[in-house]
């Protein structure tokens, strides 16, 4: 994984990516570039392929067609032409360079908050215990959990758990952070504390791909908003263009539906 790329080359380059689950075509020729320090938000109705696309970037899913490169390195295949799948060890090395935060947190329940963050640092990055602990404490402090180092996930609220999830991902110093609907499983009053952490990471220049239904948040942190439907990118542009004055019909419908759900939720 060499490719000392020029800083304006994209960190993640997605070209013509297609994927089917059986007869269901979930990705249908997606092109997207994410440059260093950029925050790209993917929105769209469920089943539009946005989560699948995100999972392809760290090879939790494979793509059948096209190419995804991370800093110039093809993610799933040994090279883009032969389509030979990478070995487990190569995949692990690539995944170590991407961070992922899950909708359902997926913290390790048998480990404390600090140990959750330390595991990758120790077993993947090969750091010794003291150094890993110091890094874990630094990140947990940054996400506002300075008093929770030794708490187990079950002792934490959803918002706190998700912040541990973020710390676990960013402590590995990934080239890109992938956020998969990270506030969807949270109680409404806990969403803010998690988004505040993401906002701070964005300000610090972390490269991120964010799948979210939080439109206000997307508007605020994104450099680029991408609207997906039917496995394709339908609209892409600056957040004010895409969200404020949606020109495309399907995007308009999607945003208005989202608004009416929100209003209903608030009313109830």
């Amino acid at each position, binding site marked *: 994984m060499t490719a000392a790329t020029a800083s304006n080359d994209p960190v993640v380059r997605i070209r013509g990516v297609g994927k089917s689950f059986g007869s269901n075509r979930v990705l249908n020729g997606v092109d997207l570039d994410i440059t260093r320090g950029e925050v790209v938000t993917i929105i769209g109705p469920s089943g539009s392929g946005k989560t699948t696309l995100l999972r392809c970037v*760290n090879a*939790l899913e494979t793509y059948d067609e096209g190419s995804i490169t991370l800093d110039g390195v093809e993610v799933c295949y040994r090279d883009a032409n032969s389509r030979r799948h990478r070995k*487990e*060890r190569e*995949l*692990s*090395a690539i*995944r*170590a*360079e*991407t*961070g*992922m935060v*899950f909708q*359902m947190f*997926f*913290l*390790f*329940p*048998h480990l404390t908050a600090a140990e959750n963050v330390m*595991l*990758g640092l120790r*077993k*993947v990055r090969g750091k010794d215990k003291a150094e890993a602990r110091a890094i874990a404490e630094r990140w947990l402090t940054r996400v506002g959990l300075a008093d929770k180092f030794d708490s*187990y*996930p*079950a*002792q934490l609220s959803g918002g706190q758990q998700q912040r541990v999830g973020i710390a*676990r*991902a960013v402590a*590995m110093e990934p080239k890109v952070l992938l956020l998969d609907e990270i506030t969807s499983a949270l109680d409404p009053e806990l969403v803010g504390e998690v988004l505040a952490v993401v906002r701070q990471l964005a300000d610090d220049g972390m490269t991120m791909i964010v799948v979210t239904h939080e439109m206000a948040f997307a508007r605020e942190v994104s450099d680029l908003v991408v609207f997906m439907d039917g496995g394709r990118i339908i609209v892409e542009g600056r957040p004010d263009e895409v969200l404020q004055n949606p020109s495309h019909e399907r995007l308009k419908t999607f945003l208005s539906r989202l608004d009416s759900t929100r209003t209903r939720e608030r009313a109830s």
Partner: protein
Amino acid sequence: MELALYSLPFLWQGTLITLAVAALVAVFSLVLGVLLGTLACFGLSPFRWTIRIYCDLIRGIPAVVLIFMVYYGLPVLLSFPINNFLAAVVALTVFTTGQVTEIARGAIQSIHFGQAEAGKAIGLGFWSRMIYVIFPQAVRRFLPPWVNNLTDVVKGSALVSLVGIVDLMLAIQQVIGRVYEPMPLYIVGSILYFLINYGLSSASQRLEGHFAYIRE
């Protein structure tokens, strides 16, 4: 009763043999069962199918048939005799491994797939994910049925007396043959078997406490 007490040293020898058989079978079947259980979850499909068939077959065959098969049957095929202790341990290991495999497979599969994904996402390889993420969680679900199985192994080891191994069971029979007092001796034997298994259960409860971490 006096006679029964008089025979205790001899019964103790038998008990040691019973413990040795059970311990060997328990260790071998644990190692093999966890390995096969892991393969049954994550292996290539030919492995998975072979293991599936093995477990289903073994479940349908009495342990004693396996012991006779190895002790009386195999030597004919290989045309050299097999030591009865070795034959018994091999047969019981084959039998018990089938059960431990199923227990391990169930324990591993009960762990949410998100745990493996979270392990992958931070760059852990397959065995690291197993050792640091999956097994520590699966062990809690593995222990109770496994200890249950262990007591079956201890009790099932009485079958080795059928191929002439002087374990606790055969020791009891031999003493009875000499003194013609079956009941006191069967009672002493039962107490010894019970004590072994009671020790196992209480040890396992302590172990389960050790692996209990707060969750949910």
